[in-house]
């Protein structure tokens, strides 16, 4: 393993019959990531079930209940590596009732592999998976047209499916879409190219996973640092040390940079960037560091440090009093998102609009207060409006006064304290939040601010 290996997180989406588990099994097997004891365990099981060949899909069946029912019931994570990259696969089930699992797994993914059965083409569920991928903002999409062996490896069939899919993907705003014909069962174009798909000139699946450019998946221009933990050793040696520990969610910061602390809008400079391994001159996303400041300013968990240049407008917006009861801005970014030289400024608000994916079995109750956890800040929240619900199959909008599990909806939220946020499109980390039910302590929804 070289010292510069990158980490790529991807998920697979497809229904039970699309051969998703077989594809993952094939990827692991052909990249020599399957160990002998694992292989012998699934060989035994395959034999017991009277199968002619070893069923590679058994590799990803984790829990006893699943093995009994022969389905995947939750998100499972798999790990493998090639000399070029390390991979984390989020294996998500394709059942209708498990939209929430796909949203969950997609939230940390760089890439999604959407599986299609070449015989069936683009189905309702393909649209659903693609819509969810676009909703959660997965940067790269691979359309894996599987079971090419069942359509005689027909280029015509592949082209037809791709043409249809591309129209749909464009509507959803999915930009980086790669389409690959393959047979997971026979191993064509997964790791090895095989000899049946010579007409296809693009990369095989693994080659693509190794090559896809992910450096720009993180926002590199707008410094965002949610304060996570205040480090005060209070020892003789570090008597005056007061550091603000956290992870840089976007952009970078250097010693001497002027920063604004939100929501208080006070400004200071970075004195030191300290880490266990020594002091840094510059740090960048996604590093976890500890910052000390030039001035003694009251800072606590939940505050956010942002770059001060150009944030004057933003700071004024916050300083002028965070609108607590005023109307929502008509368009996202109308007030403070006055873009300078391509940089964005966060908003500081107690009211905002978001797209919500409801994850809980108990429906949303508009009369109740919930907790919203956004970066490192948790605030009490009310759903002041349910604008509409999106049918994930047709993308049609319906009016809604209740939200049930797996519903995707447009809502307006009021929080007790101001949140410092960006739109999700600009920054996944500062544009996302979870909703917690205080009574059950369950995570009941995922939200994306826009």
């Amino acid at each position: 393993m070289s010292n510069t290996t990158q980490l790529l997180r991807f998920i697979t989406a497809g229904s039970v019959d699309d051969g998703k588990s077989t594809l993952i099994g094939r990827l692991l097997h052909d990249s020599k990531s399957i160990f002998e004891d694992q292989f012998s365990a699934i060989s035994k099981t395959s034999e017991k079930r009277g199968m002619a060949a070893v069923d590679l899909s058994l590799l990803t069946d984790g829990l006893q209940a699943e093995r009994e029912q022969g389905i995947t019931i939750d998100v499972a994570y798999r790990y493998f590596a090639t000399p070029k990259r390390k991979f984390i696969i989020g294996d998500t089930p394709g059942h209708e009732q498990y939209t929430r699992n796909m949203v969950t797994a997609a939230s940390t993914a760089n890439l999604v592999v959407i599986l299609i059965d070449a015989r069936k083409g683009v189905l309702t569920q393909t649209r659903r998976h693609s819509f969810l991928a676009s909703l959660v903002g997965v940067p790269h999409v691979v359309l894996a047209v599987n079971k090419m062996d069942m359509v005689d490896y027909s280029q015509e069939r592949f082209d037809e499916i791709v043409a249809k899919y591309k129209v749909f993907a464009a509507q959803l705003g999915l930009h980086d879409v790669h389409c690959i014909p393959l047979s997971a069962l026979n191993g064509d174009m997964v790791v090895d190219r095989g000899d049946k798909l010579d007409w296809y000139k693009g990369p095989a699946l693994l080659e693509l996973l190794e090559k896809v450019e992910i450096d720009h998946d993180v926002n590199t221009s707008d410094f965002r640092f949610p304060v996570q933990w205040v480090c005060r050793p209070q020892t003789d040696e570090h008597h005056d040390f007061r550091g603000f520990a956290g992870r840089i969610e976007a952009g970078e910061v250097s010693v001497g940079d002027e920063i604004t602390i939100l929501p208080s809008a006070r400004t200071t400079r970075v004195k030191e960037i300290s880490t266990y391994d020594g002091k840094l001159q510059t740090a960048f996303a996604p590093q976890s560091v500890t910052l000390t400041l030039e001035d003694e300013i009251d800072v606590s968990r939940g505050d956010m440090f942002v770059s001060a240049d150009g944030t004057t407008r933003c700071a004024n917006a916050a300083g002028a009093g965070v609108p607590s009861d005023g109307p929502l801005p008509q368009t996202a970014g109308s007030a403070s998102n006055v873009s300078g030289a391509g940089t964005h400024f966060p908003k500081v608000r107690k009211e905002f609009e978001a797209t919500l994916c409801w994850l809980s079995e108990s429906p949303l109750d508009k009369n109740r207060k919930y907790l919203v956890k956004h970066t490192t800040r948790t605030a009490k929240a009310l759903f002041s409006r349910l604008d509409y619900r999106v049918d994930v199959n047709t993308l049609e909008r319906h009016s809604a006064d209740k939200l049930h599990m797996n519903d995707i909806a447009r809502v307006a939220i009021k929080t007790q304290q101001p949140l410092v946020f960006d739109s999700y499109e600009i920054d996944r980390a500062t544009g996302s939040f979870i909703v917690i039910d205080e009574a059950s302590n369950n995570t009941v929804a995922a939200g994306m601010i826009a």
Partner: protein
Amino acid sequence: MKLVEDNLRKHTFTHLDALESESIHIMREVAAECRNPALLFSGGKDSIVMLRLAEKAFRPAKFPFPLVHIDTEHNFPEVIECRDKLAADLGERLIVRSLEDSIKRGSIVIKDESKPRNPFQSVTLLETIAEFGFDACLGGARRDEEKARAKERIFSFRDEFGQWDPKNQRPELWDTYNTRVHAGENIRVFPISNWTEMDIWEYIGREKLHIPNIYFAHEREVIRRNGNVIPMSHLVQPKPGEKVEIATVRFRTVGDMTCTAPVESNARTVEEIIEETATTRITERGATRMDDQTSDASMELRKKEGYF
């Protein structure tokens, strides 16, 4: 000049840097949001990596939690030695609770001294959690270890009985973790969930971590039983007809002496272990844990009972 170095670093932000930053973020989240956390520390390689990550997360301050070890008293002496030395060197508080205490209390009944004690660890762990009122326990489990672990959340919620319900896990989105529990409940938090055995060894090499010497190849009295290499100890003696031999072995995992098998190896340095790990054809637990071989679902069942 310094700036050049930093820029260089930016271009070489590796998978280990990414994993490290994620783990630090998780530990700090626990420190900030949990009322009374603890870090489960056994002296094994994964928990030694956890200690380094805690140093990275919290220094120059002290750890905002004690270290806790649930001692089966079936541990290799080299591991216990390393546990005590590391805790002392770091100047952090180490709480040790032994299965013997539970046996004395009558909450554990041992029928056969030579049998593995892992199944009983959950009992003492739950008793220790109750004794100190811990609401979160940081553990060094990894998802690549085992099928049941592969499906577990990083923040894994346990009910009053310490039980894990795999079908009813809280959804975990982005890096926004829900740390809330009611009184009496607790969460197990696994900051190195996404690390693999290889990542652990690369990190041990990079950070020059001190680990128990039984991880490196050494000569040891063993017997061969059911295809496993079994280390001899005061707990494990040869059965009639079994021949004790000297083999050059190392341990890939260090657990209960009665059920942890070494692998034959000549790897005497971290670099050699990394090389061997890259080419091995057997999983870590498959090679070394006889208790996980008993049933396809052994780990799942133990976790449901409160095992970490």
